């Protein structure tokens, strides 16, 4: 299980953005969603990217998650430049290096919990028995070892998000990317999921969490504030959230 705990070894940062910009063309109007973003995330860091809606944080998340490519600048993920990769190559990077956790959970309703968790492994060509074994381990890890055969509809919101976290963990990725993971949860379940992230962080996982909530960002080690497509603040957190960040909301 040590390999699960320390996913990536190397001296370079796991994530490096250099002067990344993203421009969308909606009809004849060009919208500049990101402008001159440069940042690094080291192995084992727990970073929250925070900003109000329209700040460009979703665009940044898509680029970080290799769901989209930047218009300008470069993006290195786990030592590979992914900013000019083909669609197929990006699919492989997403499969191997990134574990996604979405606001909507995005579990397939027809499949049981463990079948949902094994899904990324299907796309990386892992054999059937190994897939099941690893899915079971991941579910055990998020505390759902007794719910492996339940379908998403039979689980609470918090439990569904735990299944999604297990799915993100199962491929042993370099980066866990969580997009508003508590956005659809009540406060109790939110705290539950955030404490799970804290545990994963303690075990050496690299986590990037995107949120607009100050309380959620507060659970991270470092908070990057985004406003109008640019990095506004970048602070290491001690215990409390600096008051200057509160103004971003």
């Amino acid at each position, binding site marked *: 299980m040590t390999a699960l705990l320390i996913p990536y070894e190397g001296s370079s940062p796991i994530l490096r953005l250099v002067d990344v910009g993203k421009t969308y063309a909606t009809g004849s109007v060009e919208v500049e969603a990101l402008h001159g973003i440069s940042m690094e995330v080291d192995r084992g860091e727990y970073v929250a990217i925070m900003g109000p809606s329209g700040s460009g944080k979703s665009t940044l998340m898509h680029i970080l998650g290799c769901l989209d490519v930047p218009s300008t600048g470069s993006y290195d993920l786990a030592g590979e430049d992914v900013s000019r990769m083909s*669609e197929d190559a990006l699919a*492989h990077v997403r499969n191997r290096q990134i574990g996604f956790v979405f606001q909507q959970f*995005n579990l397939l309703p027809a499949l049981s919990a463990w079948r949902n968790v094994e899904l990324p492994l299907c796309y990386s060509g892992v054999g059937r028995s190994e897939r099941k074994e690893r899915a079971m381990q991941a579910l055990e890890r998020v505390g759902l070892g007794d719910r492996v055969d339940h379908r998403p509809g039979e689980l609470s919101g918090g439990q569904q998000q735990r299944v999604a976290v297990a799915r993100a963990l199962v491929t042993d990725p370099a980066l866990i990317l969580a997009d508003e993971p508590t956005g659809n949860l009540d406060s109790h379940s939110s705290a539950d999921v955030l404490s799970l992230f804290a545990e994963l962080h303690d075990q050496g996982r690299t986590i990037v969490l995107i949120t607009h909530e100050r309380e959620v960002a507060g659970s991270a080690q470092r908070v990057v504030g985004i406003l109008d497509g640019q990095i506004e603040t970048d602070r290491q957190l001690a215990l409390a959230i600096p008051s200057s960040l509160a103004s971003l909301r």
Partner: protein
Amino acid sequence: MTWGETFRTALEAIRSRRMRSSLTMLGILIGIAAVMLTVGLGQGAQTQVRDQINQLGSNLLIVSPGSTTTTSGIRGGRGSASTLTTRDATALASPVVAPDIARVAPVVTGSQSLTAGTTNWTTNVVGTTPDWLPVRARTLTQGRFFSTAELNDAAAVTVLGSTTASELFGGRDALGQSVNINGTTFSVIGLLNTAGSSTTTDDDDQALVPQTTYSSRIASSGNAAGISTLYLQASSTEALSAAYQEANKALLGTHGVTATAADFTVSSQQSLLTTATATDKTLTVLLAGIAAISLLVGGIGVMNIMLVSVTERIREIGLRKALGATPRVVRRQFLVEASTLGLAGGVLGIALGMIGAQVLPRFIDQPVTIPPVVGIGALGIALIIGIVAGVYPASRAARLAPIDALRSE
């Protein structure tokens, strides 16, 4: 992702939308069943006609006296004074004159009264040679056919058709019994197998005697050498047209006439068959065309449902892509799903077609024959329809950008 997993995913997707999947399959199912039944009906009708004509014998040519011409009606003394004689039969049997004719069975017939004990039965008495049995493709249930020796000796022996035998002897064993024909006592040496259903004449009601015996004991004295019909068997199917030419030429020679003044007619089974099946074929093609259109509509149904499915499952596609599915894998998943729908519809359609082939003949007086190749072909067509219907929706799914797909609510 392996093919096995892709197939499993497709099955799960089909199962989770049971109602819609079954309705989609229904289109293909009805189309395939309709195609199979129309082809089966056409085949059945053709087989029926062919069987009836083949019942006469295989590779058969029939020489009848008289000639039908466009200008002067029937030439020659058909019926009353036959233009065919035993001399013609001998000539055609010669391997030098007609090398492609394997067997010749001259037939002379007349209606006679048969008496067995106190029972009377009037039927067709046929004078012929031992070759009659193979030429007419008949078999015996009991006893034997008369031999060449019996033919040469003009022996008083007879072979009875099944109807004749049962009319004369009832349930009793006819073999070895005596029958009186025209004052002569014949002993029954064999019984013919039934010829099956025939439309025009009753092939099961006749009494066969050696041709020599017929001319010496039964025929009226003035027409001892006369022959009603000559049945010729070509040595093979390929030799049929050569045999036809040889028979024509030889008979013109023995009769000493030119082709325009011919007093006989040679006809083949093929010419009978062609006329009989031509209309059936046209009808089959027409019906199969209509059935093919219904199959096409079924295929469009599959495409329609797959397109709806892609739109509906846009989030699922986005998620799969986010988790590492390449466009190729997504395309394959939807293609396999569409072709599975097509194939399943095809299998069920074939099952329905088979049931229809059993049930339909009970309501309409028409046999339905479905050759195995039609079943296999139908399965292939169903699969191809599924694939073709899946190509466009699958490529749309593959082209979806993962962010757009994930974003949609």
